[in-house]
């Protein structure tokens, strides 16, 4: 797997230098999932983020009746799991492989190593997560405003 290629194209690592990306690549661990295999379940403890190298995953949440519904589909270079990484809460959704996929896995400890070595790079990772969360919040606000 071309880890560097995947990471450099991911919005999670925008604005990182090559040196920083190389370091993140060394820290990340490739994981393979078969189609329909669950990466993690809603409500589990988790402190890691995943970047999709190949394939697609589904984001599922339980509705009021307890039935799981697909709320989003993520593809190559997108990332997930960052919310639990930041707020240290339980996983807010289930992630299931939609097709055979390859992911890059980065734990909180790996990111701490990255922070020790590349403080500015780490700050940009946090900024990128904040940007993503901000974009989602804006979208949610827009939807809410449309309903009011």
């Amino acid at each position, binding site marked *: 797997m071309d880890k560097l290629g995947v990471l450099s194209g991911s919005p999670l690592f925008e604005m990182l230098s090559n040196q920083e990306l190389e*370091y993140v690549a060394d820290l*990340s661990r490739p994981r393979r999932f078969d189609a329909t295999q669950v990466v993690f379940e809603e409500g589990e403890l988790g402190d890691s983020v995943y970047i999709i190298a190949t394939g697609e995953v589904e984001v599922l949440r339980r509705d009021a009746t307890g039935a799981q519904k697909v709320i989003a589909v993520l593809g190559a270079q997108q990332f997930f799991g960052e919310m639990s990484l930041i707020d240290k809460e339980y996983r807010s959704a289930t992630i299931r492989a939609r097709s055979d996929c390859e992911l890059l896995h980065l734990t909180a400890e790996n990111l701490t190593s990255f922070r020790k070595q590349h403080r*500015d790079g780490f700050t940009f990772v946090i900024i990128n997560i904040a940007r993503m969360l*901000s974009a989602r919040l804006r979208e949610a606000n827009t939807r809410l405003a449309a309903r009011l």
Partner: protein
Amino acid sequence: MQTKRLPEIRELVASPEFLEWWKDLVAARTALADAEAQRDELLAQLTLMEFRAELTQKNAIDTLYRAGEHEDGAARSLAESTALENRSFPGVAAFEEQRFKVSEIWYRLGAAEKALDDAKEQNRPKNELDPLERRYRALADEYEREMARRKRLWGEVEQLWTSSTEINLITCEERVLARKVRKESEALFGLAEERKKKAHGLKAEADASATAVEAARAKLTAVRKKARDLFGASVGTDFLYFRHREDQRQAFAVCLVDDREAYNVEVKALAIYSVDRQRGVGFLEPARVAPASLEEGDRRFENYFLTGRKGSTAPSA
């Protein structure tokens, strides 16, 4: 364990001495893996051969029992057939006696018929013809009855002979089958013996391969240990360790394997990792000489925060 700086370890890992040692290590590992694979293959073959020999032996014993059953069956059938033959003799005697009796009645019937015909030709009066007629009919009835008995007796004799013949045929086949199955059993005993011999040979080969595995393992251990003398490293199974010269709490670990699952990062052979003295390889960090330039970071922050805004009047989130 020597103390070293990261550049020194990098230099060491790139040195011809180290690369020579690495080559020996890879060769020793390959030799061990090959020896283990050969041993496993031989053990698998041995187990299979022992199982097949045992199974063949069991089949041979079962087949021998089957041959015995056929022999017993043949003996039983022979006895039955003989009994039927013996039972047929009185039947034949009764039939002969009956046949004689029927012949006699037939002659008498012929005489009665002739007497009746002669009387009729001579136009004898009715009171003379009637007794002759009655005698003729009585003899004809007797003849018919006794003839039927003769046929029944013959039928009984034939039935006994048919049964006896059938049983005789089965007896003959049982005898042949007994011989055939006994031969099969003997062949199976031979095959079982042959397989036992093969298993014995494989056992000898497996023992030799186990010795080869031990030798290859000892060689690998020796090559690993050599790293301590040659490079001053502390030697683990998958890593060589050096103390960090500037930081007592840290050490450097030179990885000797490729592994994407067992550690917190995907490790690669000959890559250098920084480890904490307490946690060791429980938590690996790729070793780096120094943090990135602050200036580069500063410029990026300026670019991100101070340029490219969408406008001062834009609604804030």
